[in-house]
């Protein structure tokens, strides 16, 4: 059973990478466009980063938009005020959200379950209101504008990711691939296995000699770094950062993507993000009530495929 399921999984992963690599070429054929692909990648990365904590450590955060938004504002402000450099913007954006996550995480890792979730929401809203109110720096309700991603320079070559949509998509794909590669490596390491241990049975983990709070903090901090990298990329998709990127409703959206796609599978949240973004893109052009259709979809998934869309596909593959 193991070898066949393993082969099916490898084939699935290869197919997924092929689809991502060729997305700019097949998306127009199905009514999509390259920028939509970039949005899926960025939100998928954020959902996978959240799921690093939610699905693989068993800790529920409802405030990950805070780190996503800090990444976005960090990148935007870097481009606007500090340096016209895309790599530096990514670096400082990731650092902003990651460090905030590390500091706040240290304060809350002793909380469990709904208490942890509520405090993460509260922290997230703090950042939302700061961005909303601090007009002079953040542009307030209108969002942060007046910056643009910059061409990349490699040893004399310039790659124009600003005006060339395809180039930008592949830039996002490279960032995505590196980050999920790091995630996958960690999940297969001793550190990753202690996270699974905490998810599976916290008491057993503790009495196997794992300092549970410290390991949850490490997982939370890593998750925040990954999420804020996604946020920094998000600011570059539209050359825009808005307070809604910090709002708790986005935190909820990320949880929905992870649950809908399948929390227990590595790629599930990406699938969830793809469905979410495409449904949003398609329905919001038809009706302003698109969210109620998304809601219906979530209810159906949770009722009929409790392991998520990808969880269902994998179960079929193993049977």
């Amino acid at each position: 059973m193991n070898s066949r399921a393993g082969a099916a999984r490898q084939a699935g992963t290869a197919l997924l990478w092929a689809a991502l690599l060729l997305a700019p070429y097949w998306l127009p054929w199905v009514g999509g466009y390259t920028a939509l692909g970039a949005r899926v990648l960025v939100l998928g990365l954020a959902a996978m980063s959240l799921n690093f904590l939610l699905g693989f450590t068993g800790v529920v955060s409802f405030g990950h938009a805070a780190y996503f938004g800090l990444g976005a504002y960090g990148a935007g402000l870097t481009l606007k005020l500090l340096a016209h450099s895309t790599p530096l913007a990514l670096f400082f954006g990731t650092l902003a959200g990651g460090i905030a996550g590390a500091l706040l995480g240290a304060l809350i890792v002793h909380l469990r379950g709904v208490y942890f979730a509520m405090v993460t929401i509260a922290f997230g809203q703090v950042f939302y209101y700061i961005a909303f109110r601090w007009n002079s720096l953040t542009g307030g309700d209108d969002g942060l504008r007046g910056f643009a991603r910059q061409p990349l320079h490699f040893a004399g070559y310039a790659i124009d990711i600003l005006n060339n949509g395809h180039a930008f998509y592949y830039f996002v794909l490279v960032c995505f691939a590196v980050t999920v590669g790091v995630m996958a490596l960690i999940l297969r390491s001793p550190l990753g296995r202690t996270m699974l241990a905490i998810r599976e049975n916290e008491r057993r983990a503790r009495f196997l000699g794992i300092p549970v709070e410290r390991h949850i903090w490490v997982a939370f901090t890593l998750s925040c770094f990954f999420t804020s990298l996604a946020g920094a990329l998000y600011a570059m998709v539209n050359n825009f950062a808005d307070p809604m990127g910090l709002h708790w409703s986005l935190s909820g959206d990320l949880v929905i993507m992870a649950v809908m796609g399948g929390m227990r599978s590595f790629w599930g949240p990406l699938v969830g993000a793809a469905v979410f973004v495409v449904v949003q893109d398609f329905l919001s052009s038809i009706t302003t009530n698109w969210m109620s259709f998304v809601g219906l979809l979530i209810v159906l998934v949770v009722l009929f495929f409790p392991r998520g869309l990808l969880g269902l596909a994998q179960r079929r593959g193993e049977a």
Partner: protein
Amino acid sequence: MNVLEIRNATKRFGSLVALRNVALSVPAGELRAIIGPNGAGKTTLFNLVSGFFAPSAGSVLFAGRDVTALAAHQRVALGMARTFQITEIFPELTVFENVRIAAEVAAGYRLRPRLGRSERAEVCRRVEQTLELAGLAAKAKRLAGELAHGDQRVAEIAMALALKPRLLLLDEPTAGMGEQETQEITRLIRRLRAAGELTIVLIEHDMRVVFHLADRITVLCYGELLAEGTPQEIAANEAVQEAYLGKAA
């Protein structure tokens, strides 16, 4: 030398006194059984020793060192491992992975984001040895949650063993087991003793297992130390017969 020493430990939960002034010493290499009627404070004693909670008064010494103020994971790092009365495993991971997590923690790798080839091979060898010893090698790839109850109990012991402990605390290892499974566990515990200088403290209700395995027996009753001695002495002790064995008859 005493691997475990408990000095005048008292544990109160509100107005309930679960343990009152209990003193206990277990020398290296001994297998000590702790018996007593339900509610005697046996598991409370284990929780004090393993760091689940702190005593209200008194202290716990491990290999001569006062560990009363140490957290559970720090006591594990010093060489103390325990199992639980209700099986605590990682149900959605394989038996191999369950034991590997313990082996990696024991090797000091728990925060490592990657392992070298030789380190990984060493851990795997350690896991395979432990599974072999526990008789679970054939079930290594099964999900722990899908094993029969008896095998889950053994898997939990295997996880504790992978920590390479000096002191192993077993809380009713045969709880809920049939005749044959009980015999297998008994044989496993005897093998563990033969393999090294492991000190074992065992809480057990099955008197055949206790009298079969124990070097010495400690009897608790209503949170107090009632008697302590060799199996023969305990069997002949009138207070024990009255409070414990007599009650069963």
